[in-house]
């Protein structure tokens, strides 16, 4: 049976198509345009909420949205703030909404069990990168609301393209959890090898093996959700990936030197003049 044809005629397919249309219309209404009114923006917010609920319902009917309240909350924060990031006219508010997105993404990572990355997202992104954006905004913000913040390039085409891409991704994610994978995709993973080595598998993992997913999750040995998550990640990082860590260090140094070199443009400083005069 062709999964695409079943999806187009089934109710979930219709729901997905409706969600895609609502999302495209919402994005088009919300993006900065010359013909913006308060009413059109309100309608855009309404359609955005409808699209969000529609996508959640689609995912649910495709069997891939759980009922974890904490996850749904942080995911909702991340998605709504992400939408606000790209439709807000003022770049400063955009950056602050992006900080909110980072908080939501950090929550998602924590729910997933990646404690180190959840904290690192807050520390590195919100603490360093976003503050750097805000510094640049303070240095480079022209006075008055800039006209180029109140228009956008091809809002209709871009909104349609983004919504259709999201619909396709949702469809493929739904099929990922439902469909029988082709033989070529059923690669034996390292986790599976570990699971095979550790023979006593617990009941939950065995049940997961029955409901066929693309690759069965590991049962023991490769578990990444233990209390020593940071220690294990560090061992992996500085063990198998030591060379990559060195390369990343060199990259950071090159970026630092390059940024300073571009800013200073090789102009002589006051100290240089004094030294030459001596």
């Amino acid at each position, binding site marked *: 049976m062709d999964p695409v044809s079943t999806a187009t005629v089934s109710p979930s397919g219709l729901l997905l198509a409706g969600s895609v249309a609502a999302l495209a219309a919402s*994005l088009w209404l919300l993006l*900065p345009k*010359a013909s913006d009114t308060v009413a059109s923006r309100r309608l855009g917010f309404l359609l955005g909420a409808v699209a969000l609920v529609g996508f959640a319902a689609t*995912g649910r009917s495709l069997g*891939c949205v*759980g009922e*974890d309240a904490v*996850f749904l909350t942080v995911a909702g924060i991340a*998605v709504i703030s992400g*939408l606000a*990031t*790209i439709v807000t006219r003022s*770049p400063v508010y*955009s950056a602050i909404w*992006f900080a909110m*997105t980072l908080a939501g*993404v950090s929550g998602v*990572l924590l729910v*997933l*069990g*990646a404690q180190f*990355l959840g904290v*690192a997202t807050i520390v590195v*992104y919100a603490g360093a990168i976003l503050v750097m954006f805000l510094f640049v*905004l303070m*240095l*480079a913000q*022209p*006075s*008055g609301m*800039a*006209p*180029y913040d*109140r*228009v*956008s*390039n091809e809002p209709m085409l*871009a*909104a349609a393209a*983004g919504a259709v*891409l*999201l619909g396709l991704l949702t469809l493929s994610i739904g099929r*990922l*959890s439902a469909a029988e994978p082709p033989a070529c995709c059923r690669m034996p993973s390292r986790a599976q090898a*570990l699971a095979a080595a550790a023979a006593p598998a617990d009941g939950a993992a065995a049940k*997961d093996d029955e409901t066929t997913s693309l690759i069965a*999750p*590991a049962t023991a040995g*490769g578990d*990444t*959700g233990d209390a020593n998550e940071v220690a294990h*990640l560090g061992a992996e*990082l500085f063990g198998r990936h030591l060379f990559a860590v060195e390369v990343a260090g060199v990259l*950071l140094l090159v*970026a*630092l030197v*390059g*940024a300073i070199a*571009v*800013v200073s443009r090789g102009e002589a400083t006051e100290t240089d003049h004094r030294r030459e005069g001596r």
Partner: protein
Amino acid sequence: MIPATMLTNALLVGAVLFCLGLVGILTRRNLIVMFLSAELMLQGVSVTLVAWSRYHGDWGGQVLVVFVLTVAACEAAVALVFVLQAFASTGRLDASAWQALREENLPRVIDHELPADDRVVPTWPHLSPAGVVPEGHDSRSLERDHV
């Protein structure tokens, strides 16, 4: 280890963030907002990588996200320097200020009928002065009624 429903949940969130970032980088004209949209796409990819990593019980995805963070920091530093240089030479944070670099067969971006600045100027509360008014420059030149 996370169950399959949690995996697909996280994949959906990653897909939504990626698509929102894509729309933002295609439409917005402010260079800073374009970079924020690119970071939004990176966040979506990070969520996807971590979800797969936790699903498979493999550390590779999380290690890759650590390097994504590193490269994002480098990229932001270098790119913001270029944004500042562009602002210093044109006085605008507008991507279309650089349309002289476009291909010859592409049309020129012309801003027809820019929307009127219809935002409401806030009325600040009036406070009675306390103490001596300091001498010096007119501080109103440094004030902004918006961000």
